[in-house]
């Protein structure tokens, strides 16, 4: 169904083509015409996704030097590196829509653009690393699998790639927890404690309930978003409860109960005021996360400037060389015509 721009003009041929592409569930590519609202919504969504990958490196990255075994260290190091790669990939996808990466970074640092609320929570033990793999990557995958069929080509393809890598991370996280649950009393307690702290924030990753999600309808009409927040949240719960049972942990929700009729797990209501507070900057780590990103960006300015200066100088040198080479050829040709040695 076509979504008219506010103050809509008469339907153009380009708009018609756009609408038909969406209706046939096909892809919009960078070279295609698209409504400004579509483009802007995508830029915001993709940018936020990219920012989340980058900020997400912080809570996990701080545990690399303190991993409890060399194998765990390698796994975590690789995971965090993957996340940087995902961020880069997504920024590139945003650039195909005309966004500028430096500008997006500015928006993140100034707070004008957001990142996933989940990364505003602290990692207090190594069990948190496992639980992040299990819950947060799990939730991200639930969110992202449907986005593999998102209408915008570069975004959909990025989702396919990212999902595959994240499913490996989720597996690694779960495996870490399985190992800890088969370990000492202290390790099991650490896992349960991490579960208790990360469960509700993970449910909140899917955003506010459908009734309170104003942008969702447009995004769904444009097929940028394929399922509602509540639908995805339910999927995540249904997927995770059996995993929790295999692990031997309790999910901290007294209202979690199997609904025989609908064949889903009914669950309690997240504290939406907490989500609101965290989104608006009042979570445990918001300031630290953004500050860290800002610091790295500023500290790196001289490096980026030097790289640019060097590249420019290289270009000039190359241009000068090319010009000289062309002159030399000209001189040689002229000499040849005159029968004179150059």
């Amino acid at each position, binding site marked *: 169904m076509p979504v008219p721009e506010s103050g809509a003009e008469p339907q153009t041929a380009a708009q018609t083509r756009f609408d038909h592409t969406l209706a046939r569930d096909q892809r919009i590519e960078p070279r295609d015409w698209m409504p400004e609202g579509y483009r802007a919504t995508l830029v915001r969504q993709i940018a936020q996704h990219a920012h989340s990958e980058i900020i997400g490196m912080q809570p996990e990255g701080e545990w690399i030097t303190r991993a409890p075994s060399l194998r765990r260290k390698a796994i975590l190091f*690789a995971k965090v590196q993957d996340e940087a*790669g995902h961020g880069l990939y997504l920024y*590139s*996808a945003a650039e195909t829509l005309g966004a500028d990466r430096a500008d997006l970074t500015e928006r993140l640092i100034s707070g004008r653009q957001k990142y996933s609320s989940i990364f505003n929570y602290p990692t207090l033990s190594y069990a948190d690393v496992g639980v992040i793999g299990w819950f947060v990557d799990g939730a991200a995958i639930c969110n992202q699998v449907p986005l593999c069929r998102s209408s915008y080509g570069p975004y959909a*393809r990025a989702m396919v*790639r990212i999902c*595959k890598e994240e499913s*490996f991370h989720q*597996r690694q996280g779960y495996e870490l927890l399985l190992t800890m649950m088969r370990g000492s009393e202290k390790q099991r307690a650490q896992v349960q404690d991490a579960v208790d702290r990360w469960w509700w924030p993970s449910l909140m990753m899917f955003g506010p309930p459908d009734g309170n999600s104003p942008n969702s309808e447009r995004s769904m009409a444009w097929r940028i978003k394929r399922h509602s927040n509540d639908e995805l949240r339910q999927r995540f719960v249904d997927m995770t409860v059996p995993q929790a049972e295999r692990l031997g942990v309790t999910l901290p929700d007294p209202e979690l109960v199997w609904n025989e009729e609908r064949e889903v797990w009914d669950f309690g209501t997240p504290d939406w005021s907490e989500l609101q507070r965290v989104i608006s900057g009042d979570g445990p780590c918001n300031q630290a996360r953004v500050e860290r990103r800002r610091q790295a960006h500023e500290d790196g300015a001289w490096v980026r400037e030097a790289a640019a200066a060097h590249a420019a100088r290289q270009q000039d040198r190359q241009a000068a060389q090319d010009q000289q080479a062309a002159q030399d050829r000209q001189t040689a040709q002229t000499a040849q015509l005159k029968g004179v040695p150059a």
Partner: protein
Amino acid sequence: MVTAGTVTADARSPLQRARDAAASVLDPELPMLTLADLGVLREVGVDADGQVTASLAPTYSGCPALAEMRADLDAALRAAGFTRVEIRTVLDPPWSSDWITPEGRAKLAAGVSPRPDRPPTGRRAARCR
């Protein structure tokens, strides 16, 4: 040897069956590629007593997926009906991205980056150039 539950007779030799099973195992980190595509599956052999030995070359020293690769390969061979399985790791000669098959390269190239003018962004993609 036949897995319980296999109904149709398998006309392949045990060696072929082992090779097919091993070659089809997906890379845990880049599941669009098989171990064969990646060039890490070095050798598969079945001895006279029916024991399968498969050799893997780790891609790079820090590869965190080696344990998973070994486990997946082991599981695939057991699912193919072999009860005695040995997975060897071969450090020498060292794996190089030259060993990636043309099919593997094609799969990697698909969706490598939205910006063809920029280098590949992922860890594996960067290694497998």
